[in-house]
């Protein structure tokens, strides 16, 4: 693909263009427009007349590629004509394995210019995950009925394996192969605001992945809320991101938000951040970035893995919006980060807690930018016994801290209801429902789940639990069937499914859940009713399950084998994960074991 890798240095006074790669400017030549566009391609058409764009850095912090919005538009238009040349019709789905590269963004916009619906697929992250990864890709391709699948040369072999014998996929290849195809003479048509813009997969499940359908109108209304009200963007903002392009926060938050406000962004691969988090901070420091989002897990990695010696030449004082979301926010994580990086100019008022989910395009609530963390201390006992948040008045009472995630974006509404759907007053914990123009149209080819989540009265069930106080949302947890570890959402049923695939395990005799110790560290537990008596066979099952769960989700789990009829069932015969969790804690004395400190490495 025609990605420029070398650009002449701006303002070179020798008269000869220098071959040193220079990042795009922060200040644009264009008048800033904040997401007042009808469609994503309209937004790119405007941004393309300026001088800003995307910059890609390697693991050692060297600038590798520069993709200005102008170059992006040019390459995307050319590629769009090649896509049409393949005979694809508007609205068909195109799967792209989303490595952090210029090619991915070019393909994404090429799809939109051609009226096709792109979706990002993940890259494999776990040791030994080959087979599970291929199955995961296959699940997404088949439920979305994708017509085309693209991966760069690092990942094409996985993709070819996944599309083998998959009838819907008519073309599988690399961006390089696509560039060999002829361009269609057909004229590109304008997209309508109610057309589907993209799909966003929310779960790594192998059997039932969920593809959220988002229209142009929905994503633009969300982007407008984010850049105007959430971030209050102004012309000398600059973004930095290591978030994967296949996550909503990475793609919508840090690829599309900057584009619809014509800002420059500096990208680092997720893996390169995870191995050397300092590189992300160095980019922020060197390029005076003002906006960078990070799930709590990423902040933890920074606090854990950045050495004191690395701090010397760092200056984080330009960072005004440190967006925090994507998982439950534990105040301690943020405090640790702030205390480690205060010496190099990090301002804790930059912390910007927010709440969102792919089903709402991205963002739902934002706290007020520039005010930092606002924590409410509530009585732990009352919360557990009566699901009421009561502020702790006196010291000494056992309390739990929750972070204020702010108010809904304009036009959006949050309601907290009980299990019967009845609205609850302030401070009462219940299910968080959402309403507004950014909400999805549903899950692709999954009417059952869509119906369960999208209620008839236009409220959508977020799957989260929380309470509201003075219009601000506080999240307290997830429904029991979602386990969040290291920033990743894992569905309990996906873990149980792995167990049920073993010949020794019967269906509906497994239960997966997470236990959280007093340090807030979650561990996945898998309880299985087991008829094996041989020690060897039992050991074999346990270690096989640990290996399979690790390969699928990258987490270690505790496996407990129990006699048949141990797992608690509801009156209708359904397994109760909450009751199974309680039983596990009683049997193992987990609550008394948890004072063991989690391993902390420096």
């Amino acid at each position, binding site marked *: 693909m025609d990605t420029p890798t070398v650009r002449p240095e701006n303002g070179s006074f020798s008269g000869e263009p220098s071959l040193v790669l220079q990042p795009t400017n922060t200040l644009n030549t264009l008048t800033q427009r904040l997401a007042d566009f009808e469609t994503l391609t309209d937004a790119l058409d405007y941004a393309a007349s300026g001088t800003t764009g995307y910059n890609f850095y390697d693991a050692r912090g060297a600038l590798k590629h520069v993709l200005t919005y102008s170059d992006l538009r040019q390459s995307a238009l050319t590629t769009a004509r090649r896509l049409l040349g393949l005979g694809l019709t508007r609205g068909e789905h195109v799967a792209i394995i989303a490595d952090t590269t210029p090619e991915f963004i070019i393909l994404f916009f090429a799809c939109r210019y051609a009226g096709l619906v792109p979706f990002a697929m993940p890259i*494999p992250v776990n040791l*030994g995950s080959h087979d599970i990864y291929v199955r995961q890709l296959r699940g997404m391709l088949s439920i979305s009925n994708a017509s085309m699948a693209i991966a760069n040369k690092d990942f094409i072999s996985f993709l070819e394996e996944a599309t083998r014998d998959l009838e819907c996929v008519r073309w599988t290849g690399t961006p390089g192969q696509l560039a060999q195809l002829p361009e269609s003479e057909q004229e590109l048509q304008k997209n309508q605001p109610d057309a589907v813009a993209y799909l966003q997969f929310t779960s790594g499940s192998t059997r039932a992945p969920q593809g959220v359908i988002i229209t142009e109108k929905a994503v633009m209304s969300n982007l407008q809320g984010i850049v105007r009200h959430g971030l209050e963007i102004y012309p000398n903002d600059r973004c930095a991101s290591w978030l994967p392009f296949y996550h909503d926060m990475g793609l919508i938050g840090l690829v599309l938000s900057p584009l619809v406000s014509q800002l420059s962004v500096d990208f680092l691969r997720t893996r390169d951040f995870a191995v050397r988090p300092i590189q992300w901070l160095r980019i922020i420091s060197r390029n005076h970035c003002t906006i960078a989002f990070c799930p709590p897990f990423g902040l933890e990695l920074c606090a854990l893995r950045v050495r004191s010696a690395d701090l010397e030449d760092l200056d984080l004082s330009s960072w005004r919006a440190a967006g925090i979301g994507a998982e439950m926010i534990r105040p301690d994580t943020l405090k640790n980060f702030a205390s480690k990086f205060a010496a190099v100019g990090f301002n804790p008022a930059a912390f910007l807690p927010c709440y969102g989910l792919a089903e709402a395009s991205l963002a739902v609530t934002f706290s007020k930018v520039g005010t930092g963390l606002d924590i409410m201390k509530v009585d732990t006992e009352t919360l557990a016994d009566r699901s009421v948040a009561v502020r702790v008045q006196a010291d000494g009472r056992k309390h739990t801290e929750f972070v204020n995630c702010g108010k809904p974006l304009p036009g959006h509404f949050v309601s907290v209801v009980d299990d019967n759907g009845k609205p609850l007053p302030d401070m009462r914990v219940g299910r968080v429902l959402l309403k507004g123009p950014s909400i999805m149209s549903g899950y692709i080819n999954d009417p059952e789940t869509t119906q369960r989540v999208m209620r008839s009265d236009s409220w959508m069930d977020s799957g989260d639990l929380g309470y509201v106080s003075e219009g601000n949302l506080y999240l307290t947890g997830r429904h029991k069937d979602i386990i969040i570890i290291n920033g990743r959402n894992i569905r309990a049923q996906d873990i149980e499914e792995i167990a049920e695939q073993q010949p020794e395990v019967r269906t509906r005799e497994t239960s997966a859940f997470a236990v959280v110790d007093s340090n807030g560290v979650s561990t996945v537990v898998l309880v299985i009713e087991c008829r094996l008596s041989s020690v060897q066979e039992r050991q074999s099952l346990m270690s096989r399950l640990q290996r399979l769960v690790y390969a699928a989700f990258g987490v270690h789990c505790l496996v407990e084998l129990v006699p048949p009829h141990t797992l608690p069932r509801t009156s209708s015969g359904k397994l109760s994960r909450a009751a199974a969790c309680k039983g596990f804690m009683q049997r193992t004395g987990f609550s008394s074991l948890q004072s063991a400190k989690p391993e902390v490495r420096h």
Partner: protein
Amino acid sequence: MTDNYENTLQRICKHLERIADPGAIIRADTNLVDEFALDSVKILDLIMEIEDEFDISIPLNLMADVQLVSDLARMIERIESEK
């Protein structure tokens, strides 16, 4: 197997010994996921140390096929030979 492979293997084992539980036995056929139980942060440490020691960059697509210590050694050999 070549001397170079043996040498690579030894160097990897040295890194693994440092992050392993005391007393753990590390051989070429030790399964990193199964027997070694590396958590995600330890894997990142391991990747960083190996990258620094061998002066290579390990692409993610190759990690998906690594299960045994010997897989890791062969992968490093391959990356080094393509340098």
